[in-house]
């Protein structure tokens, strides 16, 4: 066996150990990225091979937690890809306005920047008060940060620029106050948001949503897992509901992709089609 094939086997064993011991399932994540993360982690630990980490993983829960942190990539920013927010404002919010109340789910919300960005957009368009917002992730540490809504002051210039590019109509500075070298998100933006742990690999749908955002999460999954997550979103969306994915994500490889329409050429926001009366597709669910 070549070294690289032995390593491949070691990583398979490591992921199995993680799953069987702690129930965290990375087996269907995009493999190359997981391998890179595992190698990086190996260097930090000082062990000589991936398989040497397995006993530590099995017996030491703290070791497991640091490994999970290594595998969970929480890179995010306020108004990331500003043009997406423009499209949301122009094409999606007008539809949401027709509902008396709206339910929104951010799946894989990381440290919360995306959630507060959309909250601002909702507020500026008079929709915040009828919204119920769920923001979930499987990384408790990231969720804790999200709940606090305290971010590095260093990034505020970039945030403000993004906010303006996203079509923000007010002044970004009214949504936070500065404290030492941090910004603290205004409490009034938080009152409609519920942060909770939810794992897209193992957990189920928890209600009917009008808009689901799952951005830059699916690229970390292989096709099988992408399909599982997309089916979960399909189960959770009302007819006519919207699904907003990351800029490099698509419905191309999903068998139910035909039930959805892109709302604008090249945009990654899809609307679930309204089905004609009498045509019941609920038996399609697994």
């Amino acid at each position: 066996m070549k070294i690289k094939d032995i390593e491949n086997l070691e990583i398979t064993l490591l992921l199995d150990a993680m799953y069987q011991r702690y129930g965290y399932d990375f087996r269907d994540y995009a493999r190359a990225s997981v391998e890179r993360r595992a190698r990086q982690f190996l260097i930090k630990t000082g062990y000589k091979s991936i398989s040497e980490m397995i006993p530590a993983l099995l017996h030491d829960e703290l070791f497991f937690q640091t490994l999970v942190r290594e595998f969970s990539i929480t890179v995010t920013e306020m108004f990331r890809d500003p043009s997406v927010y423009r499209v949301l404002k122009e094409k999606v919010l007008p539809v949401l306005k027709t509902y008396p109340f709206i339910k929104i789910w951010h799946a894989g919300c990381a440290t919360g920047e995306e959630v507060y960005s959309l909250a601002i957009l909702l507020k500026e368009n008079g929709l915040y008060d009828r919204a119920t917002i769920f923001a979930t992730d499987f990384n408790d540490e990231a969720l804790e940060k999200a709940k606090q809504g305290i971010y590095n002051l260093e990034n505020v210039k970039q945030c403000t620029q993004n906010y303006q590019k996203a079509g923000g109509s007010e002044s970004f500075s009214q949504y936070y106050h500065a404290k030492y070298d941090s910004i603290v998100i205004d409490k009034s933006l938080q009152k409609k948001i519920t942060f909770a742990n939810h794992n897209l690999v193992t957990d189920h749908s928890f209600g009917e949503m009008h808009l689901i955002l799952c951005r830059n999460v699916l690229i970390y999954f292989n096709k099988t897992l992408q399909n599982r997550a997309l089916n979960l979103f399909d189960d959770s969306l009302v007819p006519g509901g919207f699904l907003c994915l990351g800029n490099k994500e698509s419905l191309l490889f999903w068998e139910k992709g035909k039930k959805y329409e892109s709302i604008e050429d090249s945009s990654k926001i899809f609307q679930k089609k309204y089905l004609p009366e009498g045509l019941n597709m609920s038996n399609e669910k697994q």
Partner: protein
Amino acid sequence: MKNNKYFPEAVAIGVSAGGLKALTKVFSNLPADFPIPIIVTQHLHPLEDSYLAELLSRITLLPVKEARDKEKIKPGDIYVAPPNYHLLIERNETISLSSDEKVNHSRPSIDVMFESAAYAWGTGLIGIILTGANSDGAYGIKIIKEFGGLTIAENPKTAKYPMMPKSAIDTGTVDKILTLSEINEFLINLSRIDKNGYMNFVEDINGTQTEDIDR
């Protein structure tokens, strides 16, 4: 053990400042039946929209695409990493994109592409590092060599920005140092030879041939 008769399976190219000119030269006159895929990571400004693929498609007969997540890699096609995403190669010859932290201050990072490509293709990989003003790709070149691939660096003497090829050469794992037109010639010749010809061809341009690491 050592497989003497093999043909490379893919070319991975890393390039930074001065990239468009260099790539234009390297890709000129590549025949439409070029036998293997070419994957390119070029450092770009994150907001620069994805026009590299479009520019390149004007200068070559080969289809040039911006790489898409989970896409199957096809022989004879050129794939370019999109701005602001790392491009990784899976062992099943598909593409994965990731928005991980920057590596060497870069996203896409050449090291990230090279490393994953080395694991995917091993001896079948040709890694080429071109002009650039940083040292991304040096570590990746080392890994490619470790897994028995062929490593080529643009000659720093003639490179627009010599630092990137020089850093790769300094790892001591570059097989061949060539000018842009020699690299271009190398690629054109690749499409003219077969399995039997490849080893001789590589030995011609390259004194020492690497062995696959076997255990």
